């Protein structure tokens, strides 16, 4: 199936740990994103990456870093996790027709 897929769907971890969330798209899109969804269902952009240019939302802590091994993948690494990092994280890719989102990763930091 053509899609944006994220793994894992659920991630529970302790404060201070380092974790990664993987994202893959087989849609051939050039641009990929990471979003963080807050409790009010607001998806706030964290990063956009189009294989040439990384644009970082300056409000995102530098503990968060995207890594793109190739055009189809944009993984999210988070160092020294904090309680406030608990949220749902969505990966997305974009064509000229719009955004396609992954199913989300619910991260719980305990």
């Amino acid at each position: 199936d053509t899609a944006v897929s994220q793994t894992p769907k659920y991630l529970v971890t302790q404060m201070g740990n380092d974790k990664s969330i993987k994202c893959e798209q087989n849609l051939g899109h050039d641009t990929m994103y990471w979003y963080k969804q807050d409790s009010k269902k607001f998806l706030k952009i964290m990063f956009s990456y189009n294989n040439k240019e990384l644009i970082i939302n300056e409000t995102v802590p530098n503990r968060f870093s995207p890594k793109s091994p190739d055009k189809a993948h944009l993984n999210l690494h988070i160092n020294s996790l904090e309680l406030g990092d608990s949220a749902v994280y969505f990966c997305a890719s974009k064509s000229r027709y719009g955004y396609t989102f992954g199913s989300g990763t619910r991260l719980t930091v305990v």
Partner: protein
Amino acid sequence: AQSVTQPDIHITVSEGASLELRCNYSYGATPYLFWYVQSPGQGLQLLLKYFSGDTLVQGIKGFEAEFKRSQSSFNLRKPSVHWSDAAEYFCAVGATNNYGQNFVFGPGTRLSVLP
């Protein structure tokens, strides 16, 4: 700040019946409006979007939506529902900043389809 409401948490319709899902938004400027569908275990798929121009927007899978500025609404419609349309539907308002597009999603409406 943007906000989106979807008054109906769950709707059940019979296959072949018409469908209307309601969406109301609050936004200070001309909004970018979207409808997304999420099937179980799947990601959010774009059904249609409104940026400007014709207020009746056609989307994929036979869906359409009408932007009514006076009512701050962007309701989704389909004349004849198919069993495969059972899913969760999200209305969203988008706003672009220097980093890209932020979205505010409504709480979603779950659609069940009776055979």
